[in-house]
């Protein structure tokens, strides 16, 4: 269709161009002929306007330049000279050549020629014209998420009908934006003998609930906004609003609208009767205005009810155990599906393989949606902390405000539950040790009240939770002294800032001067760290003395699935959490011999200690000639684990080992592989501790 229009435009343009040539030649002879000037201008104008409509943008913008010059000529600001006619003729030829080449794609016309002509024209005009044709763009209608209720008063001009506008079509357009109640105000109608049938005496009060935003409402009135009285006010946002609270009283609404004065309202209220009736009977108000305010009350009530019913209907409550059963079943299903795929591939049966692929796709979708059901926004936990901060800071005589961000961030239900205690502890610490007393803060040149900021954001397949305070920051010297006192480090130990802060997580460490009822509950930061690590998360501290401390907790989105690296030792399979793995390197017999039994490998100019897992787990048999070291990084320390073969990455559903094996150290769970065999999931930090303990 568009092509047909383009073709029509081209034909028309060629016609206009030949007319243009004639007009220009005549203009050269009669440079003052207003009619001729007008004809040239219109030809350019049409080529520009229609050109841009049918996608000839280069022609449109070039012609715009010429048109601008002729607009000046038309307005008597520029004389027609031989040079102007020459340039315009050249421009006309250029447009023709652009048309000729238009089907070969943009940029085929000679841009240099266009540039020279434009430069020449601009020089003649003696000014720098803005380059491109101004094209009005409608502001994007940014649809808001939450519906807002607006109170709109639309008072059209008396003579609105004379401009061909119909207010009723505008009201109909408003109705399409959302739930809408319209009240016509007819109090301005004169008596029958004075009435002018061509005048508009009515105005309208509209209550509209829409999620399209105020601009969409203004757009409705775009043609009439200059000659009407338009008032748009947002009166209720249906997300933040406490929906249970009663809406404004009738008198308040009328007062807000400016329909009644404060005094008059009080006077009516004193009568203890129905406000509306009384105000009307006393002649303070017109009936229509009261009715309109009543409609507003009813509208808000209805919108809230609707929203509540909608919310109630769109969610159902299910006991958590049922969800757990579902996720477990999906886990089993994933395992069986993997077996199916492997068997199908093994048999080489293409029909079976096609079915297996389909099952694989469905299982992946099923797994994702089952895990999604367990996702909850972290917000509910956040609001509990607000209370905690309020109560604790009062108890300690501190002024602390808590701000939160990312309450809508979703995490697995189990993870949120298990995060509660560590987070409570961290926030307590911030309040107790972090933020100073008001006097100390003022003395340090800070504001008297401190803040604790809690935020949650998604980052990759994990969620980053940050607890930041603007308190005193960590005292490095005090930490060092305490660590020495507790024998955690020796006087000669050199420590980086990160390592020094890391000492806080060492068992039995506490720098608080005295044990307060708040944070000295016998639970140290080591417990927090262990709890976070049990969630396969990590914790980090950054702190600036005097400016505050920031604790960052990184937690995987879900506990039920783990990205891991599958390795083999002899006939046994093991999994290492991929988040901890740095790289894999080879370990040859010569390397082993060269290290003289010290279990150190030379990797990138650095020595990396390694743990031969075959020995560690007492697996019988001989290792292959070339073994593999999987190098992991824990708390910034690189440690290798020697295995026979690295198989590859694997997404695994975690199964617990059950009670009987709860004391098995260094193993966090198990999973079933595609061929039905079991792979153990290694608990790397625990394994490392065990080995360190064995070596004394």
């Amino acid at each position, binding site marked *: 269709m568009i092509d047909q229009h383009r073709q029509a435009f081209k034909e*028309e343009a060629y016609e206009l161009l030949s007319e243009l040539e004639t007009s220009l030649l005549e203009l050269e002879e009669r440079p003052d002929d207003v009619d001729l000037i007008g004809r040239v201008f219109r030809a350019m104008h049409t080529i520009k*306007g229609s050109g841009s409509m049918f996608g000839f943008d280069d022609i449109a913008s070039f012609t715009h330049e010429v048109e601008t010059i002729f607009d000046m000529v038309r307005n008597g600001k520029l004389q027609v000279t031989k040079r102007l006619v020459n340039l315009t003729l050249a421009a006309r030829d250029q447009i023709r050549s652009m048309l000729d080449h238009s089907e070969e794609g943009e940029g085929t016309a000679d841009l240099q020629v266009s540039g020279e002509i434009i430069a020449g024209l601009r020089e003649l005009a003696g000014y720098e014209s803005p380059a491109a044709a101004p094209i009005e763009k409608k502001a994007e209608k940014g649809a808001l998420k939450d519906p807002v209720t607006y109170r709109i008063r639309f008072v059209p001009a008396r003579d609105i009908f004379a401009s061909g506008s119909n207010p009723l*079509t505008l009201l109909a357009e408003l109705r399409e934006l959302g739930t809408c109640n319209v009240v016509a105000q007819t109090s301005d109608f004169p008596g029958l003998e004075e009435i002018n049938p061509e005048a508009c005496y009515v105005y309208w009060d509209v209550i509209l609930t829409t999620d399209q935003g105020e601009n969409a409402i203004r757009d409705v009135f775009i043609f009439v906004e200059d000659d009407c009285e338009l008032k748009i006010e947002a009166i209720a946002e249906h997300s933040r609003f406490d929906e249970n609270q009663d809406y404004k009283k009738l008198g308040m609404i009328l007062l807000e609208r400016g329909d009644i004065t404060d005094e008059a309202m009080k006077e009516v209220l004193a009568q203890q009767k129905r406000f509306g009736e009384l105000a009307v009977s006393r002649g303070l108000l017109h009936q229509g205005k009261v009715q309109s305010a009543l409609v507003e009350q009813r509208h808000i009530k209805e919108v809230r009810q609707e929203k509540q019913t909608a919310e109630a209907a769109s969610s159902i409550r299910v006991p958590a155990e049922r969800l757990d059963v579902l996720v477990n079943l999906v886990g089993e299903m994933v395992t069986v599906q993997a077996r199916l795929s492997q068997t199908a591939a093994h048999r080489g049966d293409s029909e079976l393989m096609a079915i297996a692929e389909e099952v694989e796709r469905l299982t992946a979708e099923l797994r994702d949606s089952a895990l999604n059901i367990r996702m909850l926004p972290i917000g509910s936990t956040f609001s509990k902390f607000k209370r905690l901060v309020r109560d604790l800071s009062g108890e300690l005589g501190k002024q602390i405000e808590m701000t939160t961000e990312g309450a809508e961030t979703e995490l697995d239900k189990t993870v949120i539950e298990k995060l509660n205690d560590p987070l409570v502890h961290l926030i307590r610490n911030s309040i107790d040790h972090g933020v100073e007393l008001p006097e100390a803060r003022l003395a340090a040149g800070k504001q008297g009240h401190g803040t604790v900021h809690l935020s949650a954001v998604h980052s990759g397949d994990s969620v980053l939770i940050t607890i930041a305070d603007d308190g005193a920051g960590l005292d490095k010297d005090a930490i060092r002294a305490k660590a020495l006192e507790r024998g955690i480090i020796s006087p000669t130990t050199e420590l980086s800032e990160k390592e020094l802060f890391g000492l806080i997580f060492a068992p039995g460490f506490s720098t608080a001067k005295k044990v307060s009822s708040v944070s000295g509950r016998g639970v140290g930061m080591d417990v927090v760290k262990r709890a976070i690590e049990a969630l396969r998360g990590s914790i980090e501290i950054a702190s600036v003395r005097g400016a505050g401390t920031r604790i960052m907790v990184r937690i995987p989105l879900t506990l039920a699935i783990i990205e891991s690296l599958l390795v083999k030792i002899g006939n046994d399979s093991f999994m290492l959490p991929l988040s901890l793995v740095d790289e894999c390197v080879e370990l040859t017999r010569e390397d082993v011999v060269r290290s003289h039994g010290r279990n150190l490998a030379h990797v990138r100019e650095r020595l990396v200690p390694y743990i031969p897992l075959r020995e560690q787990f007492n697996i019988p048999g001989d290792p292959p000639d070339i073994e593999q070291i999987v190098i992991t990084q824990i708390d910034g320390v690189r440690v290798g684990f020697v295995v026979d073969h690295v198989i590859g990455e694997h997404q695994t559903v975690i199964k617990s080992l059950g009670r009987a094996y709860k004391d098995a150290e260094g193993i966090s769970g198990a999973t079933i592989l595609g061929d039905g065999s079991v792979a153990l999931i290694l608990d790397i930090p625990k394994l490392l501790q065990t080995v360190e303990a064995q070596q004394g």
Partner: protein
Amino acid sequence: MAKIIMTADDSASVRQMVSFTLKQGGYEVVEAVDGKDALQKLSTTKVDMLITDLNMPNLDGIGLIKGARALAGCKFIPIVMLTTESQDSRKQEGKAAGATGWIVKPFKPEQLMAVVKKVLG
């Protein structure tokens, strides 16, 4: 009965596009090649809406709007002007002459239909 819309434009391609779009939208279309032609046709044909270009030979858009408003049958019909000028002065001039609204060129068929629906209901 289908509503009748007149399109007045000296550009045949724009007329064709407007006409095609309106017909697809279920309207009947009367075409006029300039202001004078339009005014003549308006005095004999009853239309429900007028869409006019501003720059036209013989009688320009502003003149057409003024002339149309003086005709009994066109006093209250919606008149929409097509304009390449997004400047306010041109719009105001048209509004003062009696135009209901405007469409800025270039426009897409959907935009044209949205405006027609807006003023015609």
